[in-house]
């Protein structure tokens, strides 16, 4: 049985159903991200686990026990907020010690734990400072230490990196992941940033309109999106219209070119389907192993340094493709004719 089990969670605010039939089982020590656009219900799910919102129906079980009738302060769940939420009247050490003090842990034990936690987040000398004397990144680290100090059963992270600048965001997310692995604490991370979710999660749950569209490892979510929404929300995607020639054999035509998908197509002959391709699956010009070649016109060229992102027009649709920079090969001029190629196996057949 999973450590944290959410079963058929529903939440309505007035006439508004924010979370619909949401089920999720999380193993002990797993790092799961809830990913989705704002208003998709991900934060509401998190707040229900924390006990700040009561589910309209459904159950939440932690370690086999239903926590539905426990209040937020009885659940022993650590939480990190987007706004840091450090207590402004307390020093860093007092902030970290707060949960232990509430629990009635003795002073000597408390001091030892605080020192250990500050060591863990790499700020051992800042115990006497007040929150306003710290940078955003440091404040959020203290918030992590404070959440972890009372040894919570589950750690909830509510967009904790959104208020930080880009560099700090990347380094802190790696740190969070390292600490989470070290302590083996079961973690739910809420974010709208797909890169963030993919880089640190064991598993991602993509949410939209209150339901879980797909749950799986980042690799799986990115390469095998099961719904059109997931395909569009996670990563950049190029859509190509194709016509079914032989549904059983998986044969379609794109811009007059025939290609064989490695799967049967659940559509009738002559029907129109959408194929999706990641930018890295498309090459400019012919390439080994990429047997489908289509004529294209270069629309835009963005030189990003190591990568060149090109937008090309193919039969009315625009595709984005990435190529690595090579000093001996300048990018093609805008407006020139070119060829693009891809492998049929890389094409993702999107459900209608």
């Amino acid at each position, binding site marked *: 049985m999973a450590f944290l089990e959410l079963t058929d969670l529903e939440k309505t605010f007035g006439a508004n159903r924010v979370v619909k039939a949401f089920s999720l089982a999380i193993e002990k020590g797993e790092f799961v991200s809830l990913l989705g656009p704002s208003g998709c219900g991900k934060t509401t799910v998190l707040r229900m686990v924390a006990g700040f919102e009561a589910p309209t129906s459904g159950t939440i079980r932690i370690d086999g026990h239903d926590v539905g009738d426990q209040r*937020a302060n009885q659940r022993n769940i650590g939480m990190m907020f987007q706004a840091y*939420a*450090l*207590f*402004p009247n307390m020093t860093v050490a007092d902030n970290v010690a*707060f949960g232990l003090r*509430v629990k009635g842990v003795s002073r000597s034990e408390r001091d030892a734990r605080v020192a250990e936690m500050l060591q863990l987040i790499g700020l051992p000398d800042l115990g006497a400072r007040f929150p*306003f004397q710290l940078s955003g990144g440091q404040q959020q680290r203290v918030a992590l230490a*404070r*959440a972890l100090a009372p040894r919570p059963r589950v750690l909830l992270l509510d967009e904790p990196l959104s208020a930080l600048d880009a560099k700090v965001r990347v380094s802190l997310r790696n740190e969070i992941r390292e600490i989470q692995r070290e302590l083996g604490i079961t973690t739910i991370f809420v974010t709208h940033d797909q890169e963030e979710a993919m880089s640190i999660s064991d598993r991602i749950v993509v949410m939209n309109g209150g339901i879980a569209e797909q749950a799986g490892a980042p690799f799986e979510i990115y390469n095998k999106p099961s719904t059109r929404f997931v395909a569009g929300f996670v990563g950049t995607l190029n859509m190509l219209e194709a016509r079914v020639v032989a549904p059983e054999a998986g044969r379609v035509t794109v811009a007059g070119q025939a290609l064989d998908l490695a799967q049967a197509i659940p559509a009738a002959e002559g029907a129109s389907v959408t194929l999706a391709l990641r930018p890295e699956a498309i090459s400019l010009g012919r390439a080994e192993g990429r047997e489908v070649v289509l004529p294209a016109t270069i629309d835009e060229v963005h030189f990003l340094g190591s990568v060149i992102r090109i937008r090309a027009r193919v039969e009315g649709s625009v595709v984005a493709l990435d190529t690595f920079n090579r000093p001996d090969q300048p990018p093609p001029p805008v407006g020139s004719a070119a060829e693009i190629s891809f492998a049929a196996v890389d094409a993702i057949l999107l459900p209608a």
Partner: protein
Amino acid sequence: MKRLVAWAAFLLGCLYFLLPLIGMTEFSLKMRRGEYSFDAYVRVFEDPRFWETFGYSLTLAAATIVFGVLLVVPTAYWVRLKLPQARPIIEFITLLPLVIPAIVIVFGYIRLYNTSSFLPLTGSAFGTDILLTMGYATLALPYMYRAVDTGLRTIDVATLTEAAQSLGAGWFTILARIILPNVLVAVLSGAFLTLAIVIGEFTMAALLNRPAFGPYMQLLGANRAYEPPALAVIAFAITWGCMGLIQLVTRFSKHERAKA
């Protein structure tokens, strides 16, 4: 030119406030004919009733402040956290004491709590003191509520509450350890205003027949010439002393510096 006008307006304002004070102080020093002296002040300080009434009012002010804080801080906190839609109503209620004269309130009290009522508070001195404290708390409510509410606005009440809850804290701990310390300066300024109101209040104390400072000042003013201004100067000194104290406390609470 604009600067000149601004300075002129500022000076005019200063004169408006300072001239009466200077005149009053000067007059209070003139008890001895032909020379300045502190005779009027000595007389005031020698009067045992000054100490009695002042001590009485100070005690009641302290009780009013404690009661006000216990009433207003949890209320304002709860309204901000759970009933934001009720804020206009609560604000209206807290403003009522400004439009209802003290004399109306005190007559209401006397009618409701007289010796033949279900709760005969006016029957004993202690009961009347309680009644007077409640009356003072009502008078101070608009100032106390506003001060605390403004203080709460400077912190993220909802998130701090949730953070504390997730760490296992109950309501009492949250209020006592997180909310109150963070609005302490606001509470202190509310407390100071309460003190000023209670020390100078006349109507309620006089009608409930309690030996407060207000009725004493009135009595002195009606019967003496030099002592009342001396008393007024003393009252001002106390008020300013309190203001200085608040500044000092603010300076000492480290985390408040961030907001300044």
